[in-house]
């Protein structure tokens, strides 16, 4: 029982990271009907930026905030420069562009920082709580994720820009008629997604060790979590990510050794999707005839 709770809790911590990246994916999907396959690599690159700052003797949280700001701007620039030229192209074209971005970020990180694993500092002390039920690190990750989610919720619910972004994602033509600069809202969306991804990367790097391929597994799980929750639902992304984290941990501990863990987890989730093909919280895509 104790071990079960332990695994659930550490699964929630991993799930918090998946939830964050899943939220980034959903944010971009809602605005553009596109799954950004480069989200993981962008997050990895952001983490390297944080790492560089920390190595330059900056205090951790200062590096954290600066990295978030830089990632936000970077995300906006990517939308303007890389995505804008193909925004009216077929979806597959846009998908290929994100795959290209994925490769560019991965290769560039490898070139700048090499492929050796690097240690990434954790801002949380390394202790256990409640009789080894959970680690302070896991609590810290979950806390940071929670704070981020609350901040995002407040932004989207209570600010004019947040409302404008939601409106632009839902109905871009009507939003334009209300004077909303839909293009700018799109860029902001990418900025937010990049910043959220950076949080995910920084939270997971102490555990996975930093290298250019760090986020590829995380992206896979985040993608799964986002779909499990419903690709159009931010709440779903968070719930889905958490479920995937816990499932992955439990499957790995009780069912099967690491190798097939991913396959089994995926199959379990696909079974759920068979019963709910639009995810747990997703809405069916209405088709007008």
């Amino acid at each position, binding site marked *: 029982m104790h071990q079960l709770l332990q695994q659930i809790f550490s699964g929630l911590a991993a799930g918090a990271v998946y939830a964050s990246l899943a939220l980034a994916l959903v944010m971009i999907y809602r605005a553009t009907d596109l799954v950004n396959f480069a989200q993981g690599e962008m997050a990895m690159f952001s983490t390297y930026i944080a790492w560089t700052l920390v190595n330059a003797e900056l205090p951790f949280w200062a590096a954290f905030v600066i990295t978030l700001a830089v990632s936000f701007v970077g995300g906006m620039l990517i939308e303007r420069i890389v995505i804008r030229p193909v925004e009216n192209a077929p979806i597959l074209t846009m998908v290929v562009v994100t795959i290209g971005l994925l490769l560019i970020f991965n290769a560039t990180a490898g070139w700048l920082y090499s492929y050796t694993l690097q240690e990434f500092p954790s801002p949380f002390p390394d202790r256990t709580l409640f009789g080894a039920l959970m680690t302070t690190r896991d609590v810290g990750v979950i806390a940071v994720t929670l704070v981020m989610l609350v901040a995002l919720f407040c932004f989207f619910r209570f600010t004019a820009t947040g409302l*404008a972004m939601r*409106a632009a994602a839902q109905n871009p033509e009507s939003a334009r*008629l*209300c004077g*909303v600069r839909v293009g700018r809202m799109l860029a902001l969306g990418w900025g937010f997604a990049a910043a959220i991804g950076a949080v995910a990367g920084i939270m997971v790097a102490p555990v996975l060790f930093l290298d250019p391929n760090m986020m590829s597994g995380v992206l896979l799980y985040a993608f799964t979590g986002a779909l499990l929750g419903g690709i159009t639902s931010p709440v779903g992304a968070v719930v889905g990510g958490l479920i995937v984290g816990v499932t992955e941990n439990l499957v790995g501990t009780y069912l099967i050794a690491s190798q097939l863990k991913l396959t089994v987890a995926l199959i379990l989730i696909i079974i759920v999707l068979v019963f709910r093909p639009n995810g747990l919280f997703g809405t069916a895509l209405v088709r007008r005839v």
Partner: protein
Amino acid sequence: MTAILELRAVKAFYGQSEVLHGIDLAVEEAGMTVLLGANGAGKTTTLRAICGMVRTEGEIRFGERRLERCTTEQIAGFGVAHVPEGRGTFTGLTVEENLRIGGYTAGRPDEKMRLMYGYFPILAQRRRQQAGALSGGEQQMLAIARALMMSPRLLVLDEPSFGLAPRVVEAIFTIVEQIKREQRVSVLLVEQNASLALEMADRAYLLETGYVVTSGTAKVLADDPQIRRSYLGY
């Protein structure tokens, strides 16, 4: 009579096909102009052309400005509020959020929302409900209120009576008339319901396959036997 909106020799294109073939149109300041015509005549296209949603040639003047090269967002910022065909309601947002986003470009949202709730009390009742849950008539009122949140100088309405019961339509039009008087908003209206529209409007234009075939004061058009037979049913 000063025209707040003037179209001169405006052509509009969907891709390679030309759908409007050089139309001339004017809306008086604080007046109401109605565009009549059968389906496919180009009425909605005209409205979309004004708001920069289709490729155009020709002149579109709004007050002192030329609109042809402007984006839809900019045109909305100049004070043109367009309620599109099908209302364009943000169904995933609440009534109140719909109004707020309408007032995105203008200021003093709370004050204006109070004003809107005054004109449309039913919206006040439903302010926290999802807009998608409202009835057709309520959504139409919401769409018009949303447009008015912009404190526009020109209100553009595309088929506001579409799919609504006659009593609801009358109620909506009465309110629009009232708003036009009290807020000094000019109105450009596209309507299939010709008799009601001609009763309220000052000027009218009749479009057919992308051309203006008749224009004049609303009274003159209402008395025109051709129009009476084709569009008014008697």
